[in-house]
């Protein structure tokens, strides 16, 4: 594909493939974001909510037991799981809600798969006194009843989406459709670094606080020594937030871990960049790598983790993939579950199943590392939400 419209492009990836109806509101959003990203008052406000409400900075925790278990590089965990609402999603939700408020929007909407982004959006909507609608696939509503109820407690309306396959990609399409019909008073808080420009840039910027904190903290911990970074990738917001600050530090090896699910067959995993069969396409407004069949129909992907279960990936990751800035790899359901249990037992930390994919890559990386080396794994969320599902998979009755 030849790129003529350079706006919002990461190399050849990205762009604004949306209906004309949405263009004026994207332009309005871009203008507002360009203004406020440099506005000291806005940044001060955002900082205040990050610190006083969400609980930033998050710890960079030296995992001594896990380090001893592997006997290689020193392992540090970036504890996004300790944030309010339990995952990095709140970083972006706070940023976008503050922006929506300044744009005079009365309502925020969101899509959600597992419910984490829906909960984060419902939370900030409650905090800022905005109306909130969360679009969620009917299949996911059934699988994630607890999060559905959390959103309701927070005052959000959860809208079931039954079209298509009734999962995250359909919920995203439905949120865009609703937005197109309510552009005057509504802001759409996309949950990952995906979608049309300016979303991938904006979400990345709001999540970049993760990498910026790691930079400062690793300076204190190791005098700046850092050899490897690992983060999980669905749409890729915690990973882009982790890697972006270090994108020019070529000596640091960065691994983006995708969900290899139950195997390499089409529809059995959620790998877009680490999958030799996937190729670029357009979904939800951006040109990026995409799980699609030979006709160009988007495939329903699979992972044990609902947060990684998305057929697309953020366009900046597609660029990093082609430039070799980040190496994208796959971890399957079983490897992720083993890592989940290992962290519970060694460190007394229950990680999200999504983050467990990043942890599981240690199993492959650590044997070739040396004790003087340093690795940071971003623990994007906590696993309380996953306990029931893990019990089921492990054959435990609870």
């Amino acid at each position, binding site marked *: 594909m030849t790129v003529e419209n350079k706006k919002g492009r990461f190399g050849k990836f990205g762009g604004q493939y949306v209906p004309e109806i949405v263009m004026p509101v994207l332009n309005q959003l871009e203008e507002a974001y360009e203004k406020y990203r440099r506005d000291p008052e806005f940044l001060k406000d955002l900082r205040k909510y990050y610190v006083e409400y969400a609980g930033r900075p998050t710890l960079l925790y030296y995992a001594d037991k896990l380090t001893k278990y592997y006997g290689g590089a020193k392992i540090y965990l970036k504890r996004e799981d300790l944030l309010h609402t339990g995952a990095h999603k709140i970083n972006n939700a706070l940023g976008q809600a503050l922006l929506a408020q300044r744009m005079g929007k009365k309502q925020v909407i969101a899509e959600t798969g597992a419910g984490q982004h829906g909960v984060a959006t419902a939370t900030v909507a409650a905090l800022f006194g905005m109306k909130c609608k969360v679009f969620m696939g009917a299949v996911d509503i059934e699988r994630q009843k607890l999060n559905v109820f959390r959103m309701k407690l927070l005052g959000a309306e959860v809208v079931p989406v039954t079209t*298509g396959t009734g999962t995250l990609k359909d919920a995203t399409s439905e949120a865009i459709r609703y937005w197109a019909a309510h552009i005057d008073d509504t802001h759409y808080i996309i949950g990952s670094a995906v979608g049309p420009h300016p979303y991938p840039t904006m979400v990345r910027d709001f999540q970049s606080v993760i990498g910026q904190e790691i930079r400062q903290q690793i300076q204190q911990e190791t005098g700046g020594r850092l050899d490897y970074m690992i983060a999980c990738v669905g749409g890729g917001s915690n990973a882009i937030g982790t890697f972006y600050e270090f994108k020019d530090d070529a000596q640091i090896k960065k691994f983006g871990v995708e969900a290899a699910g139950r195997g390499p067959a089409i529809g059995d995993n959620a790998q877009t960049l680490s999958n030799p069969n996937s190729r670029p396409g357009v979904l939800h407004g951006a040109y990026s790598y995409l799980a699609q069949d030979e*006709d160009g129909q988007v495939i329903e992907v699979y992972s044990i983790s609902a947060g990684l279960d998305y057929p697309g990936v953020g366009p900046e990751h597609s660029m990093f993939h082609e430039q070799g800035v980040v190496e994208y790899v796959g971890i399957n359901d079983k490897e992720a579950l083993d890592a989940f249990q290992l962290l519970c037992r060694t460190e007394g930390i229950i990680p999200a199943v999504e983050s467990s994919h990043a942890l599981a890559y240690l199993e492959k990386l650590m044997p070739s590392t040396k004790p003087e080396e340093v690795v940071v794994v971003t623990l994007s969320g906590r696993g309380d939400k996953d306990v029931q599902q893990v019990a089921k998979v492990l054959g435990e009755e609870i």
Partner: protein
Amino acid sequence: MTGVENKFAELKKAGKKGLIIYITAGIPDADSTVQLVLEAEKAGADMVELGIPFSDPMADGPVIQKASYDAIQKGMNLHRVLDIVREIRKKSQIPLVGMGYINIMLNYGFAKLAQDAKEAGLDGFIIPDVPHEESGELKKACRDNNLHLVEFVTPGTTDQRIGETCSTADGFIYCVSINGVTGVRKIDYSPINRVISHVKKQTATPCAVGFGIGTPEAAVEAAAEADAVIVGSAVVKNILEGADQEAMKLIASMRQALDNSYHK
């Protein structure tokens, strides 16, 4: 002149408003689609948009979403849509445009698609997720093969954007009646009518209004400033229910209502 341009010239000469019918290809099967297009022409359609199904049709409401989903389940794809076009061309010269989403076109390859589409007998494409800014490469492939790539305006399109759209538009301009998705509902056509009168000052390219039109009365109302109306969901809903004759009756009644109200 292309089939689309001829048709609009013909309508203008006769002092008539155009009626464009959208039909999702492959519902309930390929042979039926060929028949439905031929019957729609007999019932009074001036032009047909053949829907090329996509798994994630962002600009469509529930009816066309379901039609697309069902068509994909039955194996419909872009190659087969072109086969349908070839079959129709054996019997009719009604202007035909393909309506679908960019990923399907990208997957086929723009240059090859434009060549194959021309050879099959299509007159152009309507691609709702390609705004003016992103249209260049596909537009060029279409122009090289004498095909139209239809551009859009909506009630919210700014004057500056209207100017940009008018400067490159050909075939016709798709005027979206309302902020939202396809599907029948009561619509106030005055905002899009204001945009259309603005467009008319800048270009001679015909305007067709679509989204929401489900009755002969709505068709008449929507056609006030425009050269044609586009009817999709109301027809497809009948086809999905197996009520093909109802679909044809609806087309005939819209034809009659438009002619009664506007034909001089």
